[in-house]
């Protein structure tokens, strides 16, 4: 009846996952009860869960990422504590649990923190920056979000029902094959990633179409903000490589479920083929994450330096160069495979070449600041912390790209320090910069700067205290993922690293405090101008938060930084407050529960597949088909906001903005 699912699946004998799992679920249930008692349910359903508005979906992505960051970070604390304690002993985590912790940490941080946060910022900012009303396919956008949420849910479900993968953040065979991993851990991993991967692929398709086909009049390619360019590059890479991930995990699943022999190393299977396929996705994946972060830095640095971005054209070329070269370096993840010196040399050189466009970007950011009037706000601090730290992470990457050096450093703590050094200062700092930068646009009030700066300093110091030791321990021969060790030379570094993670914890506490304090004092920090940072691109030309239609009339873009350009003109000639545009009726896609229903069915199907409950799989798929047909059968997919209503909203917004801007000017 229930396949492999029995009471054995509940880890009653393992207190740590059980207690933490129960705590999480009590918190979730408590939240749901609170929502119901307060009567927020219908509002949440109408305005958020069924929303197809890109701004709402973007915010939900960011909330998902923030929640999962806490989960992934608690794994990090557990790992650092284990390695600090496990000198000459077993520490407090048994190997089976430690393996699940590091696997869950990597999986969650990449797939359910970095990805949703990046996609969340893209969702929120790209249509606003392009001067349009929504993405190309708003309903699919909602489906994307909810499929990502299903992946996150399944990973967290494995805490209390069954177990999670013990094979690392990528399930390398033959270890991940049924013979060596008979439990459901790898299945949880595979189905969670397959389901959320489909969501990500749809996002990629959606944004490629949006950016190439849906821009305001006059917004030519060479006038797009750099963030849109980086989002385009990132989504092109998503479209190009996520299908490889889907195919690869499908092969692994076929091996596990139907006794196929792709990667088994028996009956002709070849596990190294998995390495090639997974890294053909895996290396471009890090550029999917970091390119939009580069876009955020470009926006932030230009805004807070009060200058146009230096070398816009070279920035675009560098972005697209990275987009392409990122797909030609994957073999550097396994130079030790033994492909021979010629192959290794080609991939080593390609990996070094990719540092060149990245270097171009770093110089562009520095020259943008040069001669500018730099305002050291917290988004700017995150950007400066990024430039300084990321250059070091990039340099250690060039070092690892030397095949001869890589043979020494492969799978060492040096490698782990390197990729944390690129992903935390590179991606995460960029996400925090973007979060602080666009928060007032999303909610209409500015985040607390003092706590924001505290968070920045704690993060950047904590990061270096946590990961500089990794470089040293790695050079001293420490391999990654050690549950215990006896080498006294490594121990002090692991203690220092644990201290670093505590400093980062303080940084996260500061961020939570920043959010809470800002919300409580939001009346005092309200931004009525819609342009709190003296911004340059179009998103600052509408109110904060923007109305559902973003722009009452589509902007007519005439320059690279039209909004900034217009602000430089004498008010009398260019900004006739009195005259109004011609308002026209606006078509807006109707909200729909199809994303949520899809997510529910995907959860049921995924869970049933993991536990081999075949009747439930059939029910889930049948439900998906019915949903598809019912959705296709709808007659009214859009509603119309009348010209009068658009004019009313726009007039009110313009009046408030005019008043507040004039008040500021006085």
């Amino acid at each position: 009846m229930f396949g492999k699912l029995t009471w054995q699946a509940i880890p009653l004998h393992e207190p740590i996952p059980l207690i933490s799992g129960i705590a999480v679920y009590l918190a979730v249930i408590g939240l749901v009860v609170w929502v119901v008692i307060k009567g927020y349910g219908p509002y949440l359903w109408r305005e958020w869960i069924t929303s197809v508005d890109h701004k709402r979906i973007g915010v939900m992505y960011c909330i998902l990422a923030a929640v999962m960051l806490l989960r992934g970070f608690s794994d990090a604390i557990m790992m650092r504590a284990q390695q600090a304690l496990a000198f000459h002993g077993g520490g407090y985590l048994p190997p089976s649990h430690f393996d699940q912790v590091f696997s869950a940490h990597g999986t969650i941080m990449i797939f359910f923190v970095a990805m949703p946060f990046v996609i969340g910022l893209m969702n929120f900012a790209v249509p606003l920056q392009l001067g349009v009303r929504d993405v190309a396919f708003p309903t699919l956008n909602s489906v994307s979000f909810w499929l990502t949420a299903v992946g996150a849910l399944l990973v967290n479900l494995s805490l209390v029902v069954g177990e999670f993968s013990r094979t690392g953040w990528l399930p390398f065979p033959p270890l991940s094959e049924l013979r060596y991993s008979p439990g459901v851990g790898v299945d949880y991993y595979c189905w969670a990633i397959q389901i959320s991967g489909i969501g990500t692929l749809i996002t990629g398709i959606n944004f490629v179409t949006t950016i190439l086909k849906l821009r305001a009049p006059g917004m030519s390619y060479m006038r797009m903000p750099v963030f849109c360019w980086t989002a385009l590059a990132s989504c092109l890479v998503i479209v190009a490589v996520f299908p490889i991930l889907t195919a690869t995990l499908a092969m692994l699943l076929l091996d596990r479920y139907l006794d196929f022999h792709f990667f088994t190393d028996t009956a002709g299977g070849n596990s190294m083929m998995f390495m090639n396929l997974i890294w053909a996705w895996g290396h471009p994946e890090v550029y999917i994450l970091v390119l939009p972060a580069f876009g955020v830095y470009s926006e932030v640095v230009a805004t807070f330096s009060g200058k146009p971005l230096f070398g816009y054209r070279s920035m675009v070329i560098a972005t697209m160069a990275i987009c392409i070269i990122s797909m030609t370096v994957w073999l550097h993840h396994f130079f030790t495979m033994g492909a021979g010196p010629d192959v290794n040399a080609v991939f080593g050189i390609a990996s070094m070449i990719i540092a060149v466009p990245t270097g171009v970007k770093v110089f562009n950011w520095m020259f943008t600041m040069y001669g500018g009037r730099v305002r050291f706000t917290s988004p700017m601090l995150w950007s400066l912390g990024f430039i300084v730290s990321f250059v070091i992470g990039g340099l250690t990457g060039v070092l690892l790209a030397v095949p001869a050096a890589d043979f020494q450093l492969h799978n060492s703590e040096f490698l782990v320090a390197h990729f944390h050094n690129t992903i935390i200062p590179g991606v995460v700092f960029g996400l925090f910069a973007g979060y602080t930068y666009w928060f007032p646009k999303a909610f209409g009030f500015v985040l607390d700067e003092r706590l924001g700066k505290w968070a920045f300093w704690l993060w950047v110091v904590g990061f270096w205290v946590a990961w500089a030791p990794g470089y040293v321990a790695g050079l001293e021969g420490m391999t990654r993922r050690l549950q215990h060790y006896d080498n006294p030379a490594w121990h002090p570094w692991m203690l220092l690293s644990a201290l670093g993670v505590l400093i980062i914890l303080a940084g996260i506490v500061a961020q939570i405090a920043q959010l809470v304090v800002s919300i409580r004092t939001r009346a005092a920090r309200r931004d009525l101008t819609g342009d709190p940072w003296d911004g340059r691109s179009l998103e600052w030309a509408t109110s904060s938060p923007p109305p559902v239609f973003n722009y009452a009339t589509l902007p007519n873009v005439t320059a690279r930084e039209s909004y900034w350009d217009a602000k430089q003109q004498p008010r009398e000639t260019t900004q006739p407050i009195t005259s109004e545009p011609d308002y026209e009726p606006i078509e807006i896609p109707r909200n729909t529960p199809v994303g949520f229903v899809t997510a529910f069915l995907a959860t049921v199907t995924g869970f049933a597949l993991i536990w081999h409950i075949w009747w439930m799989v059939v029910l889930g798929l049948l439900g998906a088909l019915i949903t598809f047909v019912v959705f296709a059968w709808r007659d009214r997919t859009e509603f119309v906001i009348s010209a009068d209503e658009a004019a009313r909203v726009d007039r009110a917004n313009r009046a408030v903005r005019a008043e507040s801007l004039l008040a500021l000017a006085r």
Partner: protein
Amino acid sequence: MSTEVLRAPMSPSQLVPRAAAAGAPPQVTGHGAGGPASKRIIVGYGFWVFLLSDVIMFSSFFAAYSVLFKNTAGGPTARELYDLHNTALETAFLLTSTFTCALASIAVGQRSQKWTQIALACTAVLGVGFLTLEVREFARFVALGAGPSRSAFLSSFFTLVGCHGIHVTVGLLWLTTMMAQFYVKGFRTDIRHRFLCFTLFWHALDIIWVAIFSLVYLVGTLPPGFLP
């Protein structure tokens, strides 16, 4: 939060170009300044991008097949198993179904309910015929002890060809939904957009089949020693 410049809110549509005002030479802008594309273009374009991603997924299965082609683990080889007559018949079914699908496009263009339904029904029948032949071939292999578990070569064969077969199955479900929609709701614009996507999908399956036909069946039955 500097606000030294006196700013006033404006409708973005009222922005006036600095260069144009000063009579300066026009900026080099790149292309694509014409505003949002039409709904039909957006839908078709997005679906093309999806098809490209689907082709990439197939290319992963093709890559796996070529890597594992010779790994028969002592079991039957491609040359022993493949029956080109069956493959020829399958190809005929699928290519003809593409032709009838194109006829359906013309019928939709002419707003002819009758011919649309006839052409789509023919497409469906041919699609089902193709699937039947494929399932029969799979069953024959399994009966010969050459199921997907026999060797890595057969695993990759069943996955690649089976993935195409699953696509055809999904396409058939989609096709019947389209027939019902045309019948009940007529030639509404959004339904014609969906139909455009469906025809693209069906033709793409054909292109992938051409690759399977050539790289799997034709190459697989080459005489021994022909391939390095």
